């Protein structure tokens, strides 16, 4: 996810350089019309369809048992995947940003892999590994361990798809901040963890929060990868996005959009928090925008 640049409109574009007023209004109108059609309309329709049969139907859909377990599963997956990826992100950023070593660029490219791979393939690779006909399939079923078509598989696929977010935010940020402060702390006698906790962490806290925000949004909303590894068993292996799909395919539109609306609200909260962080702490997180 690229960092939105909170741009200030160039305030003093002189009259000498400006388009005629009608061109300006025309372009603004066109842009807003396009955005209205492609962004606003879908967003509004989620809520419109969810409330098509009134608030009662809406809340009933959300209170439904399967819906509740889908929500629970989504939260569990996020609660596991996000911290795991935070630990990875911080670790990877530390070793990439503060040290020089051969093969560093390969490492960085590897971190970008989930972004270039289709979500379906992200799920496929785990099926190939842990599925019944996968490498480890026979061994796993022999030991009665279920990964694919069970919660662990979902967690794994989610971890794959979301692990770059925190790392990609922190690496350029920590590279930009350099090693001066940490070196000074070492000279003063600080040990590893103390060093990190007291010196590095305060400097990266807003970038970290930003990365966690993006990671979480993606973890809760991931569909393609999770769809491949889940067994689509209602009440057991369905996250919210998957449940939306099931309800939609059963023509249960109100319920599908009801759950979708919860996800949409999550997206809006993420966007709002993202904008807030960018606006207040742009310098502390802006390093990644330089890519």
């Amino acid at each position: 996810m690229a960092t939105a640049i909170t741009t200030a409109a160039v305030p003093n574009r002189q009259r000498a350089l400006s388009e005629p007023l009608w061109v300006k209004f025309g372009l603004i109108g066109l842009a807003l019309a396009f955005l209205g059609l492609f962004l606003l309309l879908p967003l509004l329709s989620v809520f419109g369809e969810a409330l098509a049969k009134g608030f009662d139907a809406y809340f009933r859909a959300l209170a439904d048992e399967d819906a509740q377990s889908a929500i629970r599963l989504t939260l569990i997956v996020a609660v596991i995947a996000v911290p795991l990826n935070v630990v990875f992100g911080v670790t990877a950023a530390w070793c990439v940003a503060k040290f020089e070593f051969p093969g560093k660029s390969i490492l960085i490219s590897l971190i970008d892999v989930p972004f270039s791979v289709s979500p379906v393939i992200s799920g496929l690779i785990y099926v190939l590994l842990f599925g019944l006909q996968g490498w480890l399939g026979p061994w796993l079923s022999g030991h009665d361990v279920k990964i694919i078509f069970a919660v662990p598989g979902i967690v794994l696929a989610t971890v794959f798809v979301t692990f770059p977010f925190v790392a990609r935010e922190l690496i350029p940020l920590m590279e930009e901040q350099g090693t001066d402060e940490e070196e000074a702390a070492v000279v003063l006698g600080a040990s590893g963890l103390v060093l990190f906790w007291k010196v590095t962490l305060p400097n990266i806290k807003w970038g970290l929060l930003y990365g966690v925000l993006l990671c979480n949004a993606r973890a809760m909303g991931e569909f393609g990868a999770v769809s491949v590894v889940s067994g689509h068993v209602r009440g057991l292996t369905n996250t919210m996005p998957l449940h939306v799909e099931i309800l939609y395919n059963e023509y249960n539109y109100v319920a599908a959009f009801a759950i979708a609306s919860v996800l949409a609200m999550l997206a809006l909260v993420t966007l709002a928090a993202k904008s807030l962080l960018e606006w207040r702490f742009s310098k502390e997180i802006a390093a990644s925008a330089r890519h």
Partner: protein
Amino acid sequence: MIDVRNVRKTFGGFTALNDVSLHIAEGELVALLGPSGSGKTTLLRILAGLEFPNSGSVLFDGGDTTHVSARERQVGFVFQHYALFRHMTVFDNVAFGLRVRDRASRPSKKEIAERVNHLLSMVQLEGVAERYPSQLSGGQRQRVALARALAIEPRVLLLDEPFGALDARVRKELRRWLRRLHDELKITGVFVTHDQEEALEVADRVVVMSQGRIEQVGTPTEIYDHPATPFVYQFLGNVNALDCRIHNGQAVIGALTLPAPAYAGVTDATGVAFVRPHDLLLSRPGEGGGAPAVVRHVTVLGPLVRIELTLGDQVIEAETTRQRHAELQLAPGQRILIWPRQARFFLQDSWEGTSFIAEDDLSKTSAIR
């Protein structure tokens, strides 16, 4: 050729130009000189049509061009950082102004090529036509920018600190080269600079500006020898600004009293006296006239000697030749007499001043104490 009348320009709450009027004659090379914030660049950009004044008017050859856009004004503009189009070759850059003309007035490809090549040889850059700006040095880039501006045969050439981004040696070369080019082409030119040496060396006339106002307009010699205001005095060359008391037609600077007949009616007013270091005559007590001063510090700078003196409770700087220094045998603590060849007095907060010019024979001067 260009008339600026009572132009006023504000940016938000800041007044960049405050009632500025100026006339620029055909074929002149005029320098707008002043510190940053003086409004010189704003004035230049208004001449170009890149800014528009809040009030006042600009006339080109008598025609009102105040609100004419830069596109229609037919001016050539050279920027401090060249503003060459990076994705175009030198040739394409110079040809740009000719190529964007509409069908009717556009020259043929052959004509464009001829013109561009002629211009490139005029700025002594034949052979780089196919290179890109990033492959040229700073001085070369600026010459391309100049060729590009000249390609459209502008009525006037406007340059915004054209040599500001270059290092000292290149700056000096290009300065002289610009002057020669101007003489050859006989084009009207206005350039902005904060470097007084540049203005004095290159321009036919200098417009000294400060805080949105014109302080003085004149030839380089005029403004150097006869600065009209305290600001001009202090901006150009070294000067001593001394506190003085003006009373009954006399200016008293410590032990030094000089006649100021213009202020005959003034009683007990404070003022400022400006004396250039090289306008101070030094002599040994008993051998000449003047007020007593004590040498504090002597610095030899190549062919000149700079002497720091105390006159009463004020510090004054004098400049003299090595020869004179050898004659006087100046050393710290030594007492000598000083007398100004020329001085200018201003009543406090006044723009109008009066001058004092010494007569040749020091012995004829009066009021020496």
